[in-house]
């Protein structure tokens, strides 16, 4: 597939990570030259670099400086290093890949890289189109990061203030929690996908899980005096109260929430 002889550098002090990724890359494209040392190509820069965020010896900023804009940087992230992902994206990573590695996700990253041919150009042109896409395993540890990224993008591309920090933040957090806990049953093998369209007039965010879907109509009113002491049942209430529009697909495994800009 794709371009012959692509140079791929894996920056990780974890030998098992290097070995696993190198073997998978070789399986994807036998012509790719995969190495764990930056001097492997006699002065030539790598085309693609995977940086292990769990390895404190790695620096995205240094990699960006040392390899230049033509080299694409992809962050390798796991549950323990997910807090480093936003800084890694800010420092120059154009994408990320979860570890343990999902074969389909790696293939997708490789196809994007080969198709892009542009090295460090982000393939998520949020600054231009207002569209942001995220995909991650079903673990509640990712909710914080995912919500933060979408809210930050909303403040940058669409609108700021409490419509972003309260309405969008809480409504999206509730949708993601439901998708992970109930939709995907917290199965890390199932993914949650976010497709956000952030424009000055409104933030429109669709969250899709891989579950069988559910019936959102049978919910108690948590504000009634007899329900206030209950520890559950506020998620859908907050979603409906804080979002301007909430639409489910027929199967019930995808919900699109809209939060409009102030005075839009």
């Amino acid at each position: 597939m794709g371009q012959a002889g692509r140079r791929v550098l894996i920056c990780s002090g974890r030998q098992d990570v290097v070995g696993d990724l190198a073997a998978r890359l070789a399986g994807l494209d036998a012509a790719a030259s995969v190495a764990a040392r930056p001097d492997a190509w006699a002065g030539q820069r790598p085309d693609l670099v995977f940086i292990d965020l769990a390895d404190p010896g790695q620096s995205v900023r240094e990699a960006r400086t040392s390899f230049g804009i033509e080299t694409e940087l992809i962050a390798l992230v796991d549950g323990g290093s997910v807090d480093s992902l936003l800084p890694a994206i800010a420092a120059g990573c154009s994408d990320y890949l979860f570890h343990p590695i999902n074969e389909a996700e790696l293939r997708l990253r490789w196809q994007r890289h080969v198709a892009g041919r542009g090295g460090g150009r982000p393939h998520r042109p949020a600054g231009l189109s207002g569209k942001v896409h995220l995909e991650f395993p079903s673990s509640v540890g990712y909710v914080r990061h995912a919500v933060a990224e979408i809210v930050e993008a909303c403040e940058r591309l669409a609108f700021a203030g409490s419509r972003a920090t309260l309405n969008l933040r809480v409504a999206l957090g509730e949708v993601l929690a439901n998708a992970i806990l109930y939709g995907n049953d917290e199965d890390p093998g199932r993914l949650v996908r976010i497709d956000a369209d952030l424009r000055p007039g409104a933030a429109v965010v669709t969250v899709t899980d891989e579950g069988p879907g559910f019936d959102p109509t049978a919910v108690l009113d948590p504000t009634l005096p007899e329900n206030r002491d209950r520890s559950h049942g506020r998620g859908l209430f907050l979603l409906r109260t804080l979002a301007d529009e909430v639409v489910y697909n027929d199967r019930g495994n995808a919900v699109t929430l809209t939060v409009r800009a102030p005075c839009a």
Partner: protein
Amino acid sequence: MNFRISNAGGVVLVEVEGELIVGNREEFKQIVLGQLDGGGRKFVVDFAKSSYIDSSGLGALVSLSKKIREVGGALRLAGLNEDLRTLFDLTKLNTLFQISDNRDLALADF
């Protein structure tokens, strides 16, 4: 996100730094329940350094408040910013919790 525990004149003060959400509400509950098991009865949760609570976090507060009341104690909240105040107003949980503007006022109320 982090939780800091201290003792302020017999009141257990829990400072929430960051978020109280689905990803850390169990940790929060275990910390407070540990203090309850250790004999603490008066609790103030300070949200001055927090800007995000979700329904799971609200549920954890409701559940803890109930457990603390069952043994004769009390849990009070302090330092909620405008967004967080709005959440408590929307869910009517402002009727369930005593909420003070800051931790000093909450501590003085005990």
